[in-house]
């Protein structure tokens, strides 16, 4: 009623006056909102190709969710009877010149080692193994339930521990915060560039195969994050595309790497991994999207700085936690 008292005129006039004022405010608010949206849209991307406001939101969410999260909490496991069909969805980094019999795993940044540690398959098979049936989530939005067998990465890290920030001996159980905070993984180096044209063809066929899932039948088409996820494919220069087709790399935070269900996997659904699924050794990390589950690991690097990540460079969340 106080408003009425302020205008000693009839209510129609008062209404008109208020309307004018309110709609001017509304206009300012609309202009402000449009300005805000265009500000967001024009923000520069960070090194990972994510616009700053989006990155801030991702980091905020990551902070909230990791505060709610206990690293010991396991993802649900299922009875193998609930397994769904296998699916091959990515071949980046799986060059055709690869000879599994000559495969080795190079580990860099191992505590007390100045040189890279080079492992063979028998070194991996000696480690304790585990089998689990978990749901595998693609960033595209589909999921499958599969049985994975392999070495818990935690066990691997006990034998080949990363260096520490303090320089003292690593203690995975009691002082994980002192470990080098990141783990990078990459596929083996491809053959020299002139021989890699075959695999570059895989990548260019991506764009023709659209995002229709029919492409998942032809194993040549999709990628772990899918061609549909790959929103800049056609605009890339051929050099970058060749590099993407022949090399896959992911970065992980050490806490996720130490999660008890993170594994170096060599068996899928009771059978040895096929080359399409990343033989001889791939990562299975059910707390992250499929994009982090790198196939055909050639090298593992413990590092102090955040490793590059192929899909993060394309604008996806680096953390990619589920």
């Amino acid at each position, binding site marked *: 009623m106080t408003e*009425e008292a302020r205008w000693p005129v*009839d*209510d*129609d006039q*008062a*209404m008109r006056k*208020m*309307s004018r*004022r*309110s709609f001017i405010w*509304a206009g300012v608010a609309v202009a402000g909102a449009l300005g805000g*949206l265009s500000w*967001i849209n024009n923000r520069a991307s960070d090194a990972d*190709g*994510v*616009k700053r*406001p*989006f990155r801030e*939101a991702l980091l905020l*969410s990551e902070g909230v*969710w990791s505060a*709610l*999260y206990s690293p010991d*909490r396991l*993802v*649900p496991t299922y009875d193998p009877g609930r397994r*769904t*069909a*296998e*699916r091959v969805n990515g071949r980046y980094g799986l060059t055709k010149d690869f000879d599994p019999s000559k495969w080795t795993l190079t580990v860099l940044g191992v505590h007390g080692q100045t040189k890279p540690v080079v492992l063979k398959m028998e070194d991996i098979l000696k480690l304790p193994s585990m089998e689990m049936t978990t*749901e595998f*989530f693609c*960033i*595209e*939005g*589909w*999921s*499958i339930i599969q049985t994975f067998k392999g070495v818990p990465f935690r066990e691997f890290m006990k034998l080949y521990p990363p260096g520490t920030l303090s320089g003292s001996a690593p203690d995975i159980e009691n002082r994980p915060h002192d470990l080098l905070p990141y783990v990078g993984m990459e596929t083996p180096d491809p053959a020299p560039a002139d021989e890699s044209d075959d695999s570059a063809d895989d990548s260019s066929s991506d764009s023709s195969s659209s*995002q*229709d*899932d*029919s492409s*998942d*039948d032809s194993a040549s088409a999709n990628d772990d*994050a*899918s061609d*549909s*996820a*790959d*929103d800049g494919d*056609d*605009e890339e220069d051929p050099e970058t595309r060749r590099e993407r087709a022949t090399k896959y790399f992911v970065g992980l935070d050490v806490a996720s790497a130490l999660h008890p269900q993170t594994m170096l996997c060599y068996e899928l659904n009771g059978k040895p991994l096929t080359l399409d699924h990343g033989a001889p050794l791939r990562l299975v990390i*059910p*707390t992250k999207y499929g994009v982090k589950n790198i196939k055909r690991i050639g090298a593992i690097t413990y590092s102090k700085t955040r490793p590059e990540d192929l899909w993060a460079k*394309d*604008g*996806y*969340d680096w953390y990619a*936690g*589920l």
Partner: protein
Amino acid sequence: MADIRPTEIQSDKVLHKKHPLAIRWFHWINFPVLFIMIWSGLMIYSAYTPPLDAKRYVTVLGSDRIYISNDNPGAPPLTARQDGRGLPILLFPDSFYRPLAPKWLPHFLSSADPDNPSKRYIWSLDYRLAEGMGWHFLFAWFFALNGLAYVLFLAVSGQWRKIVPKPKAVVEAIKVVLIDLHLSKAKMPVRKYNAAQQIAYTGVVLMGLLMLLTGIAIYKPAEQSWLTRLFFGYTAARFIHFWTTIAFLGFFLVHVGQVIRTGWNNFRGMVTGYELVTPEEKSLLEAEA
């Protein structure tokens, strides 16, 4: 209750405070935020739209018939659900995600990449998953906080009494719908919100909560797997999330239609906070508060 017909005499009308400032802000903030959530959500949905292909998918909504996997022709047939591809409903054809630009439009206005006009348009929704996730997970915060602030305001200010339907609301809501459809000549109740509005406005708040919860179930199926399980798993959570969006669009269409029908005085109320009413209406409205 309302036996008073609005009079036709303009000069009789008096000011009535209808919407508090806070509610007007919550309302108008929600409008663009919800638009951005749906727009970016479609970018995400387009990356995995369960396809409907007669040869590969014979599953339709509500049933789960046999699907023969082309990946593994020798294997026994799987249902679409076993195959883990979700419910195969193709709601949007390609032309929805990428409507063609009219020929007369200069391509710098339509192409996302002026150097490559064949590529896609600014308004295309496909091949933008990373961007869609960026917008979705930023504006989800605004959606959640604005919704929370609205609910808290309703609770603290007592405004909830005008919105939460009474037990008898269904009967009145049916009457209101009949009046709106010109099937009844009864008089509209004179209150801030009639029962049909109360049900709609309370329902839409619950839908917002459902969106938030299914959204988290989809976003964190490992960390918050209890929530994903509450919605019967990942695929089902996505399904609920998607169809609640469609329900939101339905609400939006009816809401805008009703606002247009009701007229300028009512619309202006959501901007200025005031409405012009007859003195009789005013006394009834104030009696409600």
